[in-house]
């Protein structure tokens, strides 16, 4: 196998790998030194210099992706556009998370009195909430909080700016 052949094979491996493939894995497969593999990947990068693709180094491996400046076109092409507003269940859940965060699913469900899985998933998908880590204690449940996107949407600088709640005043 010549170096040129190795370069082409590496290009194919990076393209076809199901997850980012590491320098070591490539080296093992082709019986090449990692430094050689790295040099060859540089060559592939150069070859793609003017094209749409680039090799990204991510998660301990290499991966072909489109260059970032092309993202708007790809978005325009494929992603399904969802224009449905939040459901009542999701809005309730969002309200609780905004005020109670960090908060677990169980706590949310206790307040709402119903299961809230799909509401949580929907909010996660929309990027309005995120996982903040795990609570110490049995089962180590996930803690949820709102995202910057949430703050941006409501024009809040921080959560301190949420309207104060006084239960007494509620009818």
């Amino acid at each position: 196998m010549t170096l040129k052949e190795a370069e082409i094979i590496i290009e194919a491996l990076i393209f076809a790998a199901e997850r980012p493939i590491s320098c070591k894995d490539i080296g093992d497969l082709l019986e090449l030194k990692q430094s050689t593999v790295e040099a060859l990947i540089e060559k592939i990068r150069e070859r793609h210099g003017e094209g749409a693709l680039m090799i990204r180094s991510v998660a301990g491996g290499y991966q072909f992706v489109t260059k970032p400046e092309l993202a708007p076109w790809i978005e325009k092409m494929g992603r399904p556009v969802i224009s449905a507003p939040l459901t009542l269940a999701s809005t309730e859940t969002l309200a609780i998370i905004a005020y109670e965060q960090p908060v677990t699913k169980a706590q949310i469900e206790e307040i709402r009195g119903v299961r809230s899985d799909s509401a949580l998933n929907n909010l996660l998908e929309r990027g309005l909430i995120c996982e903040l880590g795990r609570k110490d204690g049995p089962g180590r449940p996930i803690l949820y909080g709102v995202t910057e996107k949430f703050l941006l949407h409501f024009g809040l600088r921080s959560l301190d700016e949420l309207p104060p709640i006084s239960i007494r005043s509620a009818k």
Partner: protein
Amino acid sequence: MGYVVQLDAYEGPFDLLLDLIVKNEIDIWDIPIADITQQYLEYLHSLQVRDLAIGGEFLVMAATLLRIKAKLLLPQEQIGLEESEEEEDPREELVELLLRYRFFKEVAVFLRDRYQASVYYYDRGNRTEELDVTPVYTNLVGDITLNELAGMYRELLVEAQREPPIHSVVQRVSVQERLALVRIQLMGQSSVSFGQLLQNNTASEIVVTFLAVLELVRLGEIRVLQEKPFGNIQVRPYALEMEVMG
């Protein structure tokens, strides 16, 4: 004729007949029915000897062959006519069916070759990249205001502070009841996610629902699909025949 019965499983009676025709180097337009019928029956017999089940289709074909053979054996009153009016040949219908089947069998071979050629082309490995599957929400929350959000939270808190229910009815759900419920939920649906079946269920109801789903799989009423590990489980009714009957 010294023909050795091929012991491979045939796809069906057409497959068997075509094989006999090829083996005997017969012109498909002029099948010696008596001979072929004989070999066909011998094959079925060999299955029987080996205690193998003979599909009903094979028996139907045997009857057809015998019928054609009988027709051919009937004395022809006007021998001259047989040559000119070919469509009266009792074999004709069978030949048409055989040719039609043979065509699709050839296509199947063509497809298999195409598959073998196309497996050498690998597409992009990382297909479920976030970029490609994340939906775009043009309407992130709707027109809800911050104050409405706050109001909603307050009401939930008030609601939650009300005294808890004094008594709760312990309900025991039987698998049979749940079976009926799942059937109702699936009615008219092409596919329902397992999660949907479980919505608002208590822990014991989830267990019973799971058992009911297993039972329905056993009964052959549904099939359960999961495209990737930990992925969404889809429950699909198999036979929509029930709908027709009902």
